[in-house]
């Protein structure tokens, strides 16, 4: 079995790249490297994190330019070969723009940026991203406290897509109190194959009690377990 080798993509304007790197490298002690957006290959990295931030300033539609970065071609190849890709916040937007995930992210319904802790329901625990949350004895949907920090987190998709997301159990996280107007309270989804995850909340910011929550750690631990 291969071991998890994380690659954290750095676009111009990424600003949660260091947070993801720090969580993986120094808190979870994983083999982690940055991947510069101008590179054309992800090299030996087998888990790709597309981090949060404002790639290219998000002056056009969020993520619309980043998807054309050289590194993205190889990430799409990696994903279509079943490789693991996690897009967080701006990363989620980029994955939607690049077609790895369905739907899109609109401006928040409030038209304001929102940064606060929210409660998520983990609605699908049988994924490579949530396996470690399955230890709950209650059997009910496990919850996590996790920060959101975005201006464009209002997930939207057409009716058929929503139906297929639900039918295929692709909705992984839902907000308990929707902070942005996302359809069906969707906070995170995966692709049909279950190897690409996109989510607006920040698990890398919720991996230590010192910063308010460590509920996000299990997400990375789930991935590490499934890859190792």
């Amino acid at each position, binding site marked *: 079995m291969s071991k998890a080798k994380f690659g954290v993509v750095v676009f111009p304007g990424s600003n*949660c790249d260091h947070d993801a790197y720090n969580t993986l490298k120094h808190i979870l002690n994983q083999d982690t490297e940055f991947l510069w957006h101008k590179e054309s290959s992800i090299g030996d990295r087998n888990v790709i994190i597309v981090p949060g931030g404002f790639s290219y300033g998000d002056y056009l539609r969020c993520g619309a330019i980043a998807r054309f970065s050289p590194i993205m071609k190889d990430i799409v190849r990696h994903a279509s070969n079943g490789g693991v890709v996690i897009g967080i916040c701006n990363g989620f937007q980029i994955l939607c723009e690049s077609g790895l995930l369905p739907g899109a992210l609109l401006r928040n319904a409030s038209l*304001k*940026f929102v940064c606060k802790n929210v409660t998520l329901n983990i609605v699908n625990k049988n994924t490579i991203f949530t396996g470690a949350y399955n230890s709950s004895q209650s059997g009910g949907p496990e919850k996590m406290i996790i920060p959101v920090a975005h201006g464009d987190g209002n997930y939207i998709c057409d009716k058929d897509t929503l139906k297929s997301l639900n039918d295929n159990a692709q909705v992984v996280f839902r907000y308990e109190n929707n902070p942005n107007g996302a359809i069906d309270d969707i906070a995170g989804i995966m692709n049909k194959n279950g190897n690409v995850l996109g989510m607006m909340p920040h698990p890398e910011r919720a991996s230590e009690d*010192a910063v308010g929550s460590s509920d996000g750690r299990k997400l990375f631990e789930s991935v590490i377990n499934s890859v190792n």
Partner: protein
Amino acid sequence: MHEPEVTLELAKTFGLIEEEYNRILDILGRKPSYTELGIYSVMWSEHCSYKNSILEIKKLPRSGGRLLVGAGEENAGLVDIGEGLAVAFKIESHNHPSAVEPYQGAATGVGGILRDIFTMGARPIAALNSLRFGSINSKETDVTRTKYLFKNVVKGIGDYGNCFGVPTVGGEIYFDESYRDNPLVNAMAVGIVKHDEVAKATAKGVGNPVFIVGSSTGRDGIHGATFASEEISEASEAKRPSVQVGDPFTEKLLLEASLELIKSGVVVGMQDMGAAGITCSTSEMSAKDGMGMDINLDFVPAREENMSAYELMLSESQERMLVVIQKGKEDVAKKIFDKWDLNCVEIGTVTQGPNVKITYHGKVMAEVPANTLVLGGDAPVYVRESKEPAYLKEVQNFDESALPEPKDLNAVLINLLSTPNITNKNWVYEQYDTQVRTNTVIMPGGDASVVRIKGTKKALAMKTDCNGRYVYLNPYRGAMAAVCESARNVACTGAIPLAITNCLNFGNPYKPEVYHQFREAIRGIGDACKKLDTPVTGGNVSFYNESPDYAVYPTPTIGMVGLIEDIDNMVTSYFKNEGDIIAVIGNVNCSNSIGGSEYLKQQFNLVKGDAPEIDLNSESNLIKTLVQLANAKSINSAHDVSDGGLAVCIAESCMINRTLPIGCNVNIKYAGRQDFCLFNESHGRAVISFDKENEENVKKICSDNSIEYLNIGKTGGNSIIINKEVNIPLEIAEDAYYNSISKIMEN
């Protein structure tokens, strides 16, 4: 290109006075060119030269403590925090731009102060803002414009900081009609740098190349510094083009590229371009070590066509830096900026001096001695007339005993908790990314915010403070209070106050009454800083905060940074457990005078009396006590008594942890009037809570520091109970405390 003829009249329209124009003639021995006149007018504007304030500012304690770089020596002061690290921090105003174009004005204020930090080689770790607006809920006046200003200033700050990727961790916000036409937007940034990676703002080594890096230069912000040096009026709207436009994305790239460049070791000197753009950076860097520069404007990357030398020199386009590189290492710099897709263009060389020579299209457009342009050189310095304002005696002559005593103290407290000055500012802070870089361990809303330093046990506590109402009533005492409150705030978290930066917002300095406020405030800051051993690392003066209808309260905003050596000893401001003892420590037997209080304003619509009493000795002792209590792990919470007095302080301690509020039952003995006891804002007090087993220990630490201690009750229950008269269910208090601003702003 044809340039207008230079005359005294033209000089006056540029903001120069006759005496200054004659001084230019003397210096040059000839009439200045149009470009030269522009250069002198911005460099000698109040904003760049501090000509009306420098003599007073020099009276502030500018050395001592852990200061590595003192005020005015570099772009920001530098304070040692051990382990080879230093903290760089500074606060600066962007009031005038924000008054006419709130979104860009506030955004570029943030951008400018961030550049001041990373131009020194420091990575910004936090941003704070001190904001003042008119009333947002006045029934007498139209609040539409004030709400527009507030909303867009907050959005501008958020959008810039969020995109740049620095957590905006707090500050403070006040609302008062005096700020109606002239809001105050003071932005502060804090950064960390290794001692051996500090970059200096200097030009040395004849022949070394001078580069402009970052954004291209456009016509935005021309004469911004001059605009900042006059009063706001109807005509100010026409100065909208003087407001710069921010690009946080480019700033983020500039940050990464600049830090990489500094680490590469090829930088001789570096300075950001803020006010007065290329003019200011070339002349200040040259004057620093007595050098000169030859600059060829033909090479400056321009955003617009046909820009004149005058426009290129005075543009305040954002996200640019001037860098002097070691000769022969040009390619190292170019490669780094190429990686980040930024301009990096050689525009000149360092010369023996003393002149900065500007060439454009093969013609010398300006040639002036650098030293004659800058603060500390030959820029004018004035002694201004000062006269005690007549209003001071009038407002201080006030008999508070004649005020009717309210019957329902519950209603008074609920009203205070919902008043915009006291109520929780979550509506604002949730629009800021408070967490990016995962170092924010105390979020805004308590006393100081705290940001940890990864790889160490250390953390920095930071806060801005200034109650302008106090300074209005008593400039000396009010300014002392701002320093003391900021020190108390950081000490409540367990941090030792290190140093301050200040942003001195006043009216027109040519009015002797305004100058009196300014001088007295400086004296107050100086005395407090000396007593607390918190030197001034630098800051900014903002005069002319006036409109035809209003002069702002004199507002010397203090930005304080404190050091927590061991983050495990950090203390937060909210009650933790049921059954903990609650005590007031410090100036327990205060006079209970309610002069200048929020209570007096809200209940009686009065701004009268003297500013609340303050005693520097007991402040200093209280701060030591709070730090010792934290390090002894004796207490579970500490919250300083400030706006709204003891009752508000206690209520906040119950509610600041929104996910787990805890009630209280306290009994406060009082002589005289209960309302005065509960709501007066006397300084030097904090409310703490702790396990009952720790009481002897707490009392001992207090008495060791000659600090009074008063057990007032216990935590627990679902209500805030104070004496017999106050009993408020937590959910009612929480609604008042958390939802008031959103109710005002979302309707």
